[in-house]
């Protein structure tokens, strides 16, 4: 493609975590791009490496982790760069919203100070100006009585309120990219919907690009125009939401879609994916999904680890993708 | 068992890795070896010491370390090594006796406070608050004024100062154990109070007490030595480490080892006991 350079370009990203059981290859061969103002979903089961990949973009991995590959953001390389050079980007150009709002705020500092802090360190604003803007941000994330909330401590707020605060914090410097790491998973269903609506509106208004990590396909479909699917540390499929949902080109995506309760179309009982995630310390050779896949054959054990292009904009790591999945759309093979 | 321990041990378990566990057992071995060596030295002091610790040899005073006097002689010509070895009898014995007495007193009062009902508990707890409101050394001095000089007085004063920690430990454990099923079952079976206390409650708490005691001995020996240093502990000429440090301090500039040696003796003993205490704490958690 000859379009302008993408906002974010991740290529061959690999992350090794240091665990008590030894080094763990949490993500590898991850390559994708995000254009300006685009909303991309990143889905996969827990433990698929999606959060690790997000944290690697901003260099926020746990101690002892090693990263290889490349992350280019607006022309700058972010992998292997000193903390000193990453810090001015964090919160200002790329901000991040974490999964658990209950623990993501500093329990002993006031909300106003925590929001104002990002403005003060990243934009050099003084306390008064930062505080005034923090109030405005709270109003923008639909918090009633922002003046009161500014003076409160996290433990005085509900989970939904805290997540709104964290979103306000992420929006504060008008970043060009917002990384959302399962921001609604820890919330109850009603609050989830409100937060999702808020996020969609916020990204529309600010014009920021967004990567939305979730294990929930339905959420991603609501919010994003494109989707990336991860399994056991690798990207297995990517493409525009519509085509991927209508016509998955990877057996894992197909299985994920089947496990989703249908919102439109004929009602089918949700089907869970059989089997368990493979041992992360000794993953199977070739396609990692083959141990649970209903269409796997001998050739799947020697598959290239990269996404292969399918239909231009789409890609799939399934060798059956080009020929089409044998059970695609068929009634048989849904579960065995 | 486990509930008692989790109730007592405030710090979360430290050994996350097998490597840490191995290091712990090494620490236990090193610690017990150190403490064992001290006990051996104390027992065998009369045979190990090359000289009589009290024998003065004034013409040969303040001799530098040499073949005949490995640690030199003090200002009265007494052999420092011999005094150090005999000092271990005084400090170690006194320390263990005082810690033991404090442990027994504290355990009894803790059991009583935890088991005998609210009014007794309030009184004992108040007394504990009062004792802990005074710095140890101050209470120690006040008690020694009343009890007069002598080893017996020192042990008694240290016990009366140090019992509170044991009492708190035991009381807290009793409160936990008291409400557990097996105690009620024992009560239902017709066992009387003293019997329940000693057969069912005490076995559940004594390990904690012993662990605390290993670190308490360090503090108590420090206090004994401090008294000796201030000239109000064990009376001269009995060899005692604190007194030896004080005696040597006048000659620090020229004969630093006179003060350094007895101090090091205390530090190494403290290290050994701390290692044992740490390793035991770790074991008890698992």
């Amino acid at each position, binding site marked *: 493609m000859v379009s302008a350079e993408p906002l974010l370009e991740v290529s061959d990203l690999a992350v090794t975590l240091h665990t008590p059981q030894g080094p763990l290859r949490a993500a590898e061969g991850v390559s994708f791009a995000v254009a300006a103002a685009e909303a991309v979903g990143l889905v996969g089961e827990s433990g698929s490496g999606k959060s690790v990949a997000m944290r690697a973009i901003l260099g*926020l991995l746990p101690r002892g982790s090693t990263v290889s590959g490349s992350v280019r953001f607006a022309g700058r390389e972010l992998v292997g760069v000193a*903390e*000193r050079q990453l*810090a001015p*980007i*964090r*919160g*200002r150009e790329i*901000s*991040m919203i*974490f999964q658990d709002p209950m*623990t*993501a*705020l*500093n*329990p*002993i*500092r006031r909300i106003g100070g925590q929001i104002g*802090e990002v403005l003060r*360190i990243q934009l050099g604003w003084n306390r008064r100006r930062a505080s005034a803007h923090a109030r405005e941000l709270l109003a923008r994330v639909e918090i009633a009585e922002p003046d009161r909330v500014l003076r409160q*401590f996290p*433990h005085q707020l509900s989970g939904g309120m805290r997540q709104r605060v*964290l979103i306000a*914090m992420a929006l504060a410097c008008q970043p060009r990219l917002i990384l959302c790491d399962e921001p609604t998973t820890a919330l109850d269903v009603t609050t989830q919907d409100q937060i999702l609506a808020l996020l969609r509106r916020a990204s529309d208004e600010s014009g920021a690009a967004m990567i939305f990590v979730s294990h929930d396909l339905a959420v991603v479909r609501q919010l994003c125009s494109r989707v990336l699917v991860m399994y056991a540390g690798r990207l297995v499929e990517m493409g525009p939401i519509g085509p991927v949902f209508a016509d998955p080109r990877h057996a894992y995506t197909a299985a994920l879609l089947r496990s989703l309760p249908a919102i439109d179309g004929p009602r089918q009982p949700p089907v869970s994916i059989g089997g368990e995630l493979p041992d992360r310390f000794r993953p199977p050779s070739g396609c990692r999904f083959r141990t649970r896949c209903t269409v796997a054959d001998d050739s799947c054990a020697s598959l290239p680890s990269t996404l292969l292009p399918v239909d231009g904009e789409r890609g799939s790591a399934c060798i059956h993708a080009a020929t089409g999945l044998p059970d695609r759309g068929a009634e048989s093979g849904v579960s065995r | 068992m486990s509930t008692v321990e989790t109730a007592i041990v405030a710090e979360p378990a430290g050994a996350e890795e097998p490597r840490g566990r191995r290091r712990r057992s090494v620490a236990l071995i090193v610690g017990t070896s150190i403490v064992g060596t001290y006990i051996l030295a104390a027992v065998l002091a009369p045979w190990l010491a090359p000289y009589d610790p009290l024998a003065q040899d004034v013409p040969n005073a303040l001799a530098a370390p040499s073949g005949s006097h490995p640690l030199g002689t003090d200002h009265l010509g007494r052999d420092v090594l011999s005094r150090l070895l005999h000092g271990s009898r005084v400090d170690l014995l006194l320390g263990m006796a005082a810690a033991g007495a404090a442990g027994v007193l504290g355990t009894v009062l803790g059991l009583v406070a935890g088991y005998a009902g609210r009014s007794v508990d309030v009184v004992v707890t*108040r007394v504990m608050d*009062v*004792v802990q*409101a*005074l*710095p*140890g*050394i*101050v*209470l120690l*001095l*006040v*008690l*020694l*004024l009343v009890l*007069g000089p002598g080893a017996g007085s020192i042990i008694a004063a240290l016990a009366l100062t140090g019992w509170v920690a044991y009492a708190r430990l035991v009381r807290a454990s009793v409160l936990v154990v008291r409400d557990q099923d097996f105690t009620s079952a024992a009560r239902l079976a017709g066992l009387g109070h003293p019997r329940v206390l000693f057969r069912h409650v005490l076995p559940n708490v004594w390990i904690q007490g012993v662990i605390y005691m290993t*670190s308490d001995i360090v503090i108590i020996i*420090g206090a004994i030595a401090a008294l000796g*240093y201030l000239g*109000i502990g064990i009376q001269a000429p009995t060899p005692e480490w*604190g007194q030896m*440090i004080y005696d040597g*301090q006048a000659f*620090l*500039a020229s004969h*630093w080892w006179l*003060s350094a040696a007895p*101090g090091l003796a*205390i*530090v*190494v*003993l*403290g290290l050994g006991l*701390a*290692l044992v205490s*740490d390793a035991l704490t770790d074991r008890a958690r698992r």
Partner: protein
Amino acid sequence: MQRLGYLGRRLGYVLITLWGVSLLLFVMLQLLPGGPAEAMLGITATQQQVDALNQELGLDRPVVAQYVDYMGRLIRGDLGDSLVFGRPVVDVIGDALPATLKLAVYVVALSTLSTVTLATLAASFRGRAIDHVIRALPLIGVGMPGFWIGAMLLFLFALTFPFFPAGGIEEGFAGALRSLFLPALTLAISVSAILIRSLRRGLIDVLESDHVLTARAKGLRGVRLVVRHVLPNAAIPTVTLMGLVFVSLLGGALIVESVFAIPGVGQLLVNGFKRHDMPLVMGIALLSAAAILLVNLLIDVVYSLLDPRVSLR
């Protein structure tokens, strides 16, 4: 309002405990072998002298009357007259207090500095050599008697390398800073031994917490991150240890003053003990108990200010 009520109740508790301490001391006085007067005057005193002192102190009256008198004087803030100095105990202690207070403030400053520095170093390089060294320090430090550390520092930095005076307390701020450095360092070593361990644990817990990740995602790093989001949170559990530390600090200061010939309350106590100056020893005991109880109350208040989740009730 709620906070005031809490403070009122806590102050009541402090007064009750202080009353307990005074009762304990009164009982001690009564238990003195041969009575207080004889103990004070020593065995060489004649019966006449003893009787005279007994009458002067009102010790020839019934115990209950003595107690009423004792409490009455305590409530008026009268701790009696020192036998050695022949002046009110309160005045004698008041004269010695500045030296001890200077030392205490110095120790707090030094130990805070060293604890924060070493614990932060250990926590940020955990598992590395520097961490192991720092973690081993308390094991050694806990068994080191303060007076011995003092004597060794004296030998090293006052006698062998004469950077600091060998004792006493010099005039002026700079003089006090210089002359009190070694005694303060002596005490700071034992105090830090307790605190480093606790703060290191707290720091590691906080460093791994989610809110620090959020702060880093906002662009905080280095010293600013540690000072704003790590240390205050990590300090909370350590603050609860401060009461314990203050008691050991006070006890240690009394002995270290003797090592360095600092004319403070500790010297007063030791001399009072040696010369059987009962009113002086009792007065110091009562005042140190008051100091400990008030410091503990202060620590609880500080704790509630540090952690908004704690409410004083």
